[in-house]
Each structure stands twice: as structure tokens, then as C-alpha cells.
């Protein structure tokens, strides 16, 4: 029995569950989620087995699809690691869904598409020819679109779905062209043939550009990110977790598959595109997130940032690989893939936490939350772990991948090109800026949501969510801690993938004493998350014990001090907007045209004073609005073509025919 039997069986299970969902969404919801959990668990284990088995490629072909292409599937080391990432997030979302599903107002719009969406993402990862890949990609896009539109009557969701489907179509179109170029004149659509083919440098550059467009639009690279913060929050929360935590990783997979596997050797200068786009994405994504006051949209913008971080790693790996530095390329690639895994863990966790808050309070506006740490202790603890992990704080997992990325940046002076010697440290500075902004963003997100006093009755009366939801969050939180303190095990497991993609590998981490990680050599740098955690735990507990034993343990509860003027009204607290105000004043005027106007009434006037803040999304205004305007204008102008007589239509057809014949004649 090869590994394909359980994989195919679980994919069939997911599709069958989708059918069950169509038939009985309301009564069989929990069954569908539990069944999907089984399916993703099997896929997760299969991926892990393939990875630990050294990543020897396994192929299978099915007599489906286009006759002369067929449908090919393949599990190699790259597919295996992404199987693990996809199904890790998928499993957590399924378990969360069991509890969350009972709150769903329109289960018939969610339950059938959920397992189909999972199956689609897995099929993208498994596909081994362009046709199957694109078909699965579109299947994934359409099922997720249906899930985004589940609550289409809520304001804004219909627009979100519309923009999403336009951007998804655009992305697939770019990928279609990329694969068309890769297949060449003979139409060799199997990935094996593409691997063997040698593209001319100019063609390969075009393919890479199209791939950045196609996968970047799905992953949310600036400026292709506009749909993401609209569509991800519009879906039900466990689907948001899947879209943000997992589907963006499938897009990263698409980029890695084409750029590192299918395309031949690269020129170093192409790495500038992912590097620069990644850095811009990382910083802008977080600045958007800091200004956002909707919890789920804030998380979606933070996904944009993390995709940027992953693309910085991939760009570095491209640069090192093109210059024949396999060890450094392996380091950058490890950082990128580890960050993809980490982000799948903590972003799924944070979206599930936002979902728990949403189902407990009905609110996702930060201005109406607060004080939930008293009402929802488990959710708040799990969210705190996720927030600390995504802020790259040691000893959690987010820090490990950012640390590896910094180490890769420090190798950059060994690059022979002067441009890269200067560019990469500047990229590193932007990465550092985004890491620091992430901490500010998540202090704000956690602090305003869970700490302080409740800003609405709904928040004051919130109840902790059910056991399944808490279990899913706790599992992901535990994973964040475990990867943070035992990163060496994960890095070793990534080994086969890294060898396949980068041509080099990191030192075997299990041979390093004390479970430290050593990216290049021990004298250069090392980090030990376990020891850092142990030191912190021991010194913190010792200090607490000593103070409590030898000094005082008396506690008195009293009203807040607040410099002697405590006001009981929660309105006197800092809000999401006031917390972001200093950062808005620093970064806003340049990047968002942020303006503040104070309308202060004259003395004697009794109307209230007003502070108005305007923030503009320049990416949308400068890039998308002109396109929208042009399309509307063209539609308006061409409208009269609908009302011609039959003679004119015949003339038009004839003219078109002549024109095409001329084109063909000139072409030949």
C-alpha cells in the first residue's frame, strides 16, 4: 500500500462529506466537521510520514481530465511539508467548527463548501501537472468565494465577494499564462516535462513575473492585497482561519513550486522582485493593521504582513541560490518555510480566538469589546499566546523563524553583487520595523479586546465558548510553544524539502548539544528557546517565591488609583483609535494621507467638540480606482453596441474577420 491510498481515501471522504452537507446541512453539520477532522488528520499524518521518510517522490496518474494530459499527482518533500501545513490549520478549524457550527445562522451556505474547500487546497498541493493544478486552484478559489458569500446580506460582504472573485480570476489568469509559457510549443503540461525543459532567460523572467502576480494575488502581496482584508473577515471565523492561515500558504506553495522547482536556474536580479515586494508588504500590512479597529480585519492585514515576511525569505533564497551559495539559500528557505508553518499555527489560532469573541459577544469592533479576560479566561490565554508568538517574542515560535531570517540577512555581504550588498540590509531594516510594529499592533489587539473594562453590555455579559472551540485553540497554542522551544526537530524535518529546493542544507540540529539551533556555525550564532524559557520560568518563579515567603504576600483590593481621579465610566479608557494615535501621527501623513481636524466650538457655544480623522487607502485610490473608472467608462461608451441593426452587426463581424486574416497573414 503506498501513501496514496489513505490520501485518496481522505480526499474522497472530504468530497463525500461535502455532498452530505448539501443534503442535510442543518442536521449533519457536526458530523461533517468531525468527518473532515478525520480526513485532515489522515492527510496530516500522511504528509508527516512522507516528510520523515526522506521525501522520496511518489507519483500516481489517474485517467481523468484532458485525454492527452490525464491527472497526475505526486507527493515529494515540498508537497509533504505543505500537506502538513494545510492540514494542521485544517484540523484545528474542523474541531473549532464542531462547536462554532451550532451558532451558524445559515449552515446550508457553509457546511457543504467547507470540506470541499479543504479538499481543493490539498489537491493543489498534490497536483503534478498544470491542468490538475489550475483546476484545483480554481476549485479552491470558488469554494472559498462561496464561503465568503455565506453571509451575503451583511453590509460590505457582497462587495468583498465581488472584489475577491475578480482578483482570484486575475490571479488564475496570470498563472494560466505562466504555465502556458512553461509548457512551451509542444504543450507539455506535466510538471516532469517542465522540470526537464530549459527556458531562455527572458522567458523564465516572464514566467517568474506572472507567477508573482498569480500567486501573490492569492497570498496578498501589496499591491495585490486589496481583496484580502475584505474577504477573509467576511467568511465565518473558522473559514477565516483557513483562508488566512492556510490558503495563503497554498499560494506560497504555488510560488515555491514554480520558482524553485519547475523553472530552471535563475539570474540573481530576479530575486529583487520578491524581496522588495515582500518588504513593502511586511511594513504596509502592519501599518494598515494598526489603524484598523475591526478585530478580524486587523488579523487579515497582519496576514498580509506575514506573507511579506515569507516572501522576503523566498527572495533571499533565490538570490543565494542564483549565486551558488547553497548553505545560505538553505538558511533563507528554512526561515521562509518555518515561518509559513508558524504563521499557519498562530494566525489560525488568532482567527479562532476572534471567532470565539464574535460568537460570545456578537461584536468584532474593538470599540465595543474589553474586559473579556475575566469572562473568557481560556480564550484570552490562548489568544495571548498567539499574540506573543506573532509579535516574534522569545521563547515562542514566531521568534525562531524571524531570527533565522535575520541570520540569513547577515550572510548577505557574501553576495557578490554590490546592489544586493546594499539592498538586503535595507530589507532587514524594514523587517525589523515590521517586527516592532507587530508588537505594537498585538498589544493593541489583545489589550483593547481582553483587558480593561467592558465597553458594551455584550462584552460585559460574554460567556466562555464551548469545549471543542477551546480545545482547538489550546492545541494551536501548545503547538506555538512547542515549536518555539524545540525548533531543531522541525528544522531537521524540513531537511529533505530544503535539499530539494535550495540544493544545500543546515547542519543537523539534533546533533547540536542542549537542543540549541545553529544555522551556520556555532561560533557565528546560536539560540536555545528551551533554555531561555527555563531560565525565565525559574527566575520568575524564584523571585515570586522569595518575595512571597520572605517579604509580604498581603493583597488589598481597592478602586483604581488613576492619579487620584478614577472615573467609573469605561468611556474614559484608551480606545483602539487613541492607542493607534501616536503611530498614526508618525506614519500616517505620508503613507495614508491621514488628517486630523478638530472642530472646537467657540466659548458659550454648547455643541460638542469634534475630532475627525480621515485616512485614505492610497493603494486603492492610485492603482485600482483608475482601472475601475476605465472599465465603467468603457462599458458606458460601448453600451450603444447593444442597440445596432442586423446590417451593422454583420458588417462588424465581417470587419473582424478581415482584421484577423490580416493579422494571421502578417504573423506568418
Amino acid at each position, binding site marked *: 500500500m503506498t501513501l496514496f491510498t489513505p490520501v485518496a481515501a481522505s480526499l474522497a471522504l472530504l468530497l463525500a462529506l461535502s455532498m452530505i452537507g448539501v443534503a442535510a446541512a442543518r442536521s449533519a453539520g457536526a458530523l461533517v466537521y468531525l468527518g473532515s477532522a478525520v480526513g485532515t488528520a489522515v492527510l496530516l499524518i500522511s504528509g508527516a510520514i512522507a516528510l520523515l521518510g526522506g521525501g522520496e517522490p511518489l507519483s500516481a496518474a489517474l485517467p481523468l481530465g484532458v485525454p492527452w494530459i490525464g491527472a497526475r499527482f505526486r507527493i515529494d518533500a515540498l508537497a509533504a511539508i505543505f500537506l502538513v501545513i494545510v492540514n494542521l490549520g485544517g484540523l484545528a478549524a474542523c474541531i473549532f467548527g464542531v462547536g462554532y457550527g451550532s451558532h451558524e445562522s445559515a449552515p446550508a451556505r457553509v457546511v457543504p463548501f467547507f470540506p470541499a474547500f479543504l479538499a481543493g487546497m490539498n489537491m493543489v498541493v498534490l497536483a503534478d501537472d498544470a491542468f490538475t493544478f489550475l483546476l484545483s486552484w480554481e476549485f479552491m478559489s470558488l469554494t472559498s468565494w462561496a464561503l465568503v458569500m455565506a453571509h451575503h446580506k451583511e453590509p460590505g460582504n457582497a462587495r468583498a465577494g465581488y472584489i475577491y472573485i475578480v482578483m482570484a480570476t486575475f490571479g488564475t489568469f496570470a498563472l494560466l499564462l505562466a504555465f502556458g509559457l512553461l509548457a512551451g510549443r509542444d504543450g507539455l503540461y506535466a510538471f516532469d516535462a517542465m522540470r526537464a525543459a530549459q527556458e531562455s532567460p527572458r522567458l523564465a523572467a516572464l514566467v517568474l513575473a506572472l507567477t508573482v502576480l498569480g500567486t501573490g494575488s492569492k497570498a496578498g502581496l501589496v499591491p495585490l492585497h486589496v481583496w484580502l482584508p475584505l474577504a477573509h473577515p467576511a467568511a465565518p471565523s473558522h473559514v477565516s482561519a483557513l483562508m488566512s492561515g492556510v490558503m495563503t500558504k497554498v499560494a506560497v506553495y504555488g510560488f515555491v513550486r514554480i520558482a524553485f522547482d519547475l523553472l530552471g536556474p535563475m539570474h540573481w536580479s530576479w530575486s529583487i522582485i520578491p524581496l522588495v515586494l515582500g518588504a513593502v508588504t511586511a511594513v504596509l500590512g502592519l501599518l494598515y493593521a494598526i489603524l484598523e479597529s475591526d478585530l478580524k480585519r486587523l488579523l487579515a492585514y497582519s496576514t498580509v504582513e506575514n506573507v511579506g515576511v515569507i516572501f522576503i525569505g523566498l527572495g533571499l533564497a533565490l538570490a543565494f541560490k542564483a549565486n551558488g551559495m547553497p548553505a545560505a539559500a538553505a538558511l533563507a528557505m528554512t526561515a521562509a518555510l518555518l515561518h509559513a508553518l508558524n504563521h499557519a499555527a498562530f494566525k489560525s489560532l488568532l482567527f479562532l480566538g476572534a471567532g470565539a469573541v464574535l460568537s460570545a459577544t456578537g461584536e468584532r469592533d474593538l470599540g465595543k469589546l474589553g474586559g473579556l479576560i475575566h469572562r473568557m479566561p481560556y480564550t484570552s490565554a490562548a489568544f495571548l499566546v498567539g499574540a506573543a508568538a506573532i509579535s516574534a517574542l*522569545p521563547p515562542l515560535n514566531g521568534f525562531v523563524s524571524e531570527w533565522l531570517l535575520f541570520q540569513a540577512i547577515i550572510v548577505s555581504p557574501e553576495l557578490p553583487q554590490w546592489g544586493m550588498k546594499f539592498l538586503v540590509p535595507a530589507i532587514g531594516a524594514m523587517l525589523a520595523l515590521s517586527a516592532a510594529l507587530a508588537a505594537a499592533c498585538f498589544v493593541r489587539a489583545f489589550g483593547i479586546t481582553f483587558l480593561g473594562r467592558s465597553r458594551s453590555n455584550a462584552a460585559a455579559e460574554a460567556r466562555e465558548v464551548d469545549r471543542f472551540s477551546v480545545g482547538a485553540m489550546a492545541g494551536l497554542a501548545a503547538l506555538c510553544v512547542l515549536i518555539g522551544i524545540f525548533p531543531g526537530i522541525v528544522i531537521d524535518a524540513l531537511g529533505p524539502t530544503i535539499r530539494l529546493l535550495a540544493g544545500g542544507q543546515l547542519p543537523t540540529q539534533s546533533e547540536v548539544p542542549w537542543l540549541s539551533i545553529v544555522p551556520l556555525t556555532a561560533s557565528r550564532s546560536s539560540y*536555545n528557546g528551551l533554555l*531561555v524559557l527555563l531560565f525565565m520560568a525559574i527566575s520568575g518563579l524564584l523571585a515570586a517565591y522569595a518575595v512571597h515567603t520572605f*517579604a509580604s504576600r498581603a493583597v488589598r483590593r481597592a478602586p483604581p488609583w488613576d492619579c487620584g481621579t478614577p472615573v467609573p465610566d469605561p468611556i474614559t479608557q484608551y480606545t483602539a483609535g*487613541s492607542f493607534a494615535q501616536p503611530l498614526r501621527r508618525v506614519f500616517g501623513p505620508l503613507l495614508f494621507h491621514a488628517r486630523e481636524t478638530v472642530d472646537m466650538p467657540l466659548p458659550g457655544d454648547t455643541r460638542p467638540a469634534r475630532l475627525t480623522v480621515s485616512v485614505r487607502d492610497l493603494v486603492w485610490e492610485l492603482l485600482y480606482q483608475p482601472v475601475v473608472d476605465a472599465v465603467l467608462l468603457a462599458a458606458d461608451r460601448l453600451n450603444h453596441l447593444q442597440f445596432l441593426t442586423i446590417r451593422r452587426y454583420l458588417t462588424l463581424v465581417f470587419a473582424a474577420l478581415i482584421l484577423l486574416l490580416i493579422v494571421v497573414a502578417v504573423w506568418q
Partner: protein
Amino acid sequence: MILDTLVQGMQMMLVLALAPLLTGLIRKVKARLLRRQGPSLIQPYRDLLRLIRKEAVIAENASWLFRAAPYAIFAAIWVAAALVPTFAAGLQFSWSADLIAIVALLGSARFFLALAGLDVGTGFGGIGSSREMMIASLAEPAMIIVVFTLSLLAGSTQLSSIAGFMQSADVGLRVSLGLALISLLMVAIAENARVPIDNPATHLELTMVHEAMVLEYSGRHLAMIELAASLKLLLYVSLIACIFVPWGMAGTGHGGPAAYAVGLATWLGKLALAGFLLALFETAIAKMRVFRVPEFLGAALMLGLLALLLRFVSRSM
């Protein structure tokens, strides 16, 4: 092995024991410069003792996070301070966290301090947290750029290796090192909430940053936070000393009672000198408005970037 552990443990206890003394020294020098008598050198120890013996008054709606945060902050900063070489480089656990990890550990402490500021839900706590995160989001990149510059020169992010490199003869005077030093000093002033960014002695509410966050704390919790702040100051002084004036410090693999004694004596001298200079600087300058801080830190960031780009230019100028 056991001896190595003992030396590492000694360093950990040493930084803890000396941190309040450095704070006391700075206060004393500042007072003398203002022609005041000033409190005694050991006043910070007395304050800490008094605070931990008192009962802690906690706001009615404070959560577990509020009570746990002081210990978490103290632990993170203490561990970070113990990993910075003081009298000797290459101690037993010095490899468990490099300079980037030490910066990130301080980030962890700040994360919990800012959350604690928001926990009770008062206006002042919010002011402090939001300003602290704004300052940090500019200071941390500047710090990381300085780290980049140093590690690109030394070929390592391990503090012991960087110190070893700086002790070696072939460093020479470099423009980029000078710029990195200025940038690091500016970051250190901002990170430790010193004048002109923040005033550790202020009680004028609207100008407070660090003090505003800890306004609700009292008793032993306040003591932990004060001690952590002293430790952080000591950490930054040791960090700057071990990178830019590493002379006298016992090098990696050159340990021994005599070398440790020399290292200890020079380190104490460096601490005293740094404390005196900081007091002098603080007395000579006025605190700036909060929204001038981004310009100050932006300058630090730019100097760091310049240092990074100029590292190729001057080798032996």
C-alpha cells in the same frame, strides 16, 4: 563544568545586586550637579526593601495578567542582563541567546508591561502603553540595524564573539562603528526612559510614559518593576561597554581568577563612568515633547543605516 556554572551564576547575582547601586549613583551625581545633597547611594535598596514588605494594593478589576506581569517582566530582563558579558565573555550559557535574542527578550518584557498598563482600564495606563509602543516601534529597528552593522563586521551575532572581535587589534577606527555607537546610545536613552525621551523622576502626568504604565502598581509588584528597570539600565551600560570598550574583560577561554578580577574591576569602573556621564547628560538637557521623539529616534535609525552602508568604506582610516 561546575565551576563554569558557578561563574555564570555569579554573573547573574552580580547584575542583580549592582543594578540598584547604578541607579543610586546616577541619582546622587545628578543631585550633586544640581547642588543638592541628594539621597544616599544605597537609597534604591532601601526603597525596594520597603516596597516588598508592604501589602500590594490592587485595583478591583485587575486580572491575573496584572499580578503575573511584574514577575514575567523581571524574569525576562534578568535573563537578558545575565546573558550580556560583564566582566568575562564566553560564559557557560552565553550561547543560548545571541544579541538579537537579547533585544527580543527586552521586547517580551515591554510587551507585558504595555499589557499591564492597559489591564485596569485607566486613561493614564493607556497613555503610557500607547506611547511606549510608539517609541519601541522606532527604537527597536534602530537597535536591530546596529546589531546588523556589528555582526556584519564581526561575522557573528554572539555578543562574546563580537566582544572578542572588537578586542582584536585589526578593528581600527571605523566611521561606521562611530555612527553605530551614537545610534546605540540614542536607542539606550529611549529604551531606558531617560531624559530627553522620558523623565524617570517626573510626576507630571501628561508627560509620563514609563511611570504612567506602572501607575496602578504598588508594593512588591512595583518593586519588581523598579528592579527590572534598574537591571535594564545596567544591561544597556554593560552592552555598550562590552561592544565598544571591551578592554579589561576576560576573553572567551581566557578565564581564571586573575582575569576575572581584572575584568570585574574594569567593569565597575566603566559602570561608574557611564553613570556619571549619563547624569551629566541628563542635567544638561531638557525633556522633549512626545511628538519630537520620532524625530530623535528617526535620527538614530538613519545613523544606524548610514553605519550599515558605510561599513565597506573605511577599514583603516
